[in-house]
């Protein structure tokens, strides 16, 4: 872990020679390892970790775990925001409340959002959620200073979504879901330096993707997601897809 911390500690920017280098965050989800937390008999731990980390109001999930089927049987798919490079949500926002930051993370400025919800209609991955009523603010969240990188406390009448834990990656921590996954199925990657890690191992991102037939969810849409999936059925933990 210390090695890892060193490698990521520089966060979004890292000094390289004279200038700085900007991270381009990506995520890899290894579906061979994701078994929906069924083998440990718990609700999906990534979801729980995310809910805790962002004090999510009831009814919101910034990452969901859904069941899908293919020829070999059923499998679990965690769906965070895909941080699309060609993001429909960014294009349609009339006030620029949704934008991509320098590291390629799509953020929402809840102090600017007018709550038109066109971005929700436009997102092809159904990941955006709305604060339909005043979200409760737990005492510990009340002290947080709001920023789009850590959109807490939540604002009534505005949209929210997964922001790839911009507040955590900025100082070299894994996103809450990746840190919370007991199977270490979620990797944070950086396209600039071509590395990825799940907290246990550090890999070369491009090799990892190509060797394991990684793909992007609904890639045909042309939204160019920054989230990659490695096909699988949770078999790394002995799950049988027929089940």
């Amino acid at each position, binding site marked *: 872990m210390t090695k890892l911390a060193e490698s990521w500690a520089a966060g979004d920017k890292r000094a390289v020679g004279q200038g700085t280098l900007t991270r381009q965050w990506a995520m890899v989800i290894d579906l061979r390892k994701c078994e929906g937390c069924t083998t440990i008999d718990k609700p999906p731990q990534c979801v729980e970790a995310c809910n805790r980390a962002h004090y999510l109001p009831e009814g919101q999930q910034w990452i969901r775990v859904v069941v899908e089927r293919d020829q070999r049987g059923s499998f679990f798919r965690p769906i965070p925001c895909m941080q699309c490079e060609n993001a429909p949500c960014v294009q349609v926002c009339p006030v620029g409340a949704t934008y991509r930051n320098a590291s390629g993370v799509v953020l929402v400025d809840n102090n600017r*959002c007018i709550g038109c919800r066109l971005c929700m209609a436009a997102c092809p991955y*159904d990941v955006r*959620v709305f604060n339909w009523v005043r979200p409760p603010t737990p005492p510990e969240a009340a002290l947080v200073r709001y920023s789009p990188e850590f959109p807490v406390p939540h604002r009534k009448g505005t949209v929210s979504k997964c922001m790839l834990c911009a507040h955590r990656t900025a100082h070299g921590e894994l996103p809450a879901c990746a840190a919370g996954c007991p199977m270490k199925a979620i990797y944070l990657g950086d396209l600039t330096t071509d590395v990825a890690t799940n907290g246990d191992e550090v890999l070369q991102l491009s090799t990892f993707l190509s060797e394991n037939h990684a793909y992007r969810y609904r890639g045909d849409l042309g939204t160019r997601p920054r989230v990659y999936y490695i096909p699988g059925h949770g078999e790394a933990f002995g799950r049988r897809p027929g089940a």
Partner: protein
Amino acid sequence: MSEARRLEAQLLGVLARPPRWYPFIVTLLAGVVAWAFYAWTVQYRIGLGVTGMHNRVPWGLYIINFVFLIGISHAGTLVSAILRITAAEWRRPITRMAEVITVVALMTGALMVMVDMGRPDRLLYLLRYGFGHLSSPILWDVLSVATYLTGSLIYLYIPLIPDLAMLRDRLGPKVPGWQQWLYRTLAMGWRGTPRQRARLERALTVMALLIIPIAVSVHTVVSFVFSMTLRVGWHSSIFGPYFVVGAIFSGIAGIITAMAVFRRIYRLEAWITEEHFQKLGWLLLALNLIYLYFTFSEYLTMGYQPDDAEAALLRLLFIGPYGKIFWPMVLGGLVAPALLVMVPSVPALRSLRTVPVLRPVPIALTAAGLLTTVLLARGMPQAAILPAWLASWETLRWPLLGLGALLILSLVPVLQARRVASLVTASVLVNIGMWLKRYLIVVPSLAVAQTPFGAITYRPTWVEYSIIGGTFAGFALLYLVFSRLFPIVSLWEVREAEDSAIREPADVGTRPYVAPAGGRT
């Protein structure tokens, strides 16, 4: 007394002393509006959570009603402009009504968007930040609706000026002081001099020419809010023209309905004649057929796709939970009106009324149709020839409901003799149908899951229904109040037509309006 003068007397009478029912209706409408306002305060306090919308169906009745009202707004100014440019003489008694519809519908429609916003307090952010984000279809909407509203107000106002001057001069002390002041100020010193008239005519022509492309742009960009997304059923290049045609279609139906109402309440039968209804009726029919054609090509193309999502959407619409809206919309809102417009013009149908034995035929036919379908659905042996999915009650009940909507056709013999009633019935059906159609555009596409989800439903709440009811009441209220303060028929234009007819074929429209005694010189 000439026709035009009688019309003037009639309408000035309304302005000087409103009909007896007027205060009651106004109070009633204002009550509904007040209730809607209360519902809105509840929504403002608690949040949009009091509506039936949720994360998977983030848009509901408000957006549907927005599209509907913008659609209604369409025909007024557009039709009036086209008729003016093409110098269609029969337009004269109806242009004003049409123009007012546009303004009122645009105002209520724009209100719907504000009601729908999660943060209405941040409305002005659209101006503050918007211009850096012109890629957003919402901004296109804001810009074009604002332009259209401004343009329509000007286009309503310009031909109102000569009438205002007449009100100023003729009503005088018959109306309260503020009303006199209103006419005096708005008339802007109109004296009807040849120079003023020439300017007025020129301004009108310029506005009429400008307003046509603006009107077309408005509904096109309303459709872009949907079609610029990747959603199934929305992402379609036909959406622009489809919306424009739909808007003009429902707008004309709106004009016909309003004409019928005003003709009745202000006793204008002598000026708004069957001819006006029939002419607009043919226009309605033409747009009806174009709309049917667009609808057909839209769904056929969709149905031919091997895509799962498109198939899922069509299933939802045709035999799924939205079938109970879809079939009445198609049969009751598109097919039935087309037939109703044609019915009085088919002489052969007269025998349905005049020959006694034929009288029960329409009802019998409808009943027989319904009965056969039900029997088939209930598993008569003959039903075996139908494909399995068609032969079950569950899948058939919605188309049946639509057929039920066609029951209106059993009224054919009655309507055959009453052209106006037939057209007004058609118009009301069209407007109901088009409202439902907007529901079918907005909700089912959102309800088709793009990522795995259970069934997605949307059930509006009392807050939404109240606010929708309130906007319609507000619409009627504004319209009525306008007709109480200003002549609902363009009096000087009617008179101009009469004058030029008398002095055939001398210089049309150059005769100055002469202020009667008492007016300032």
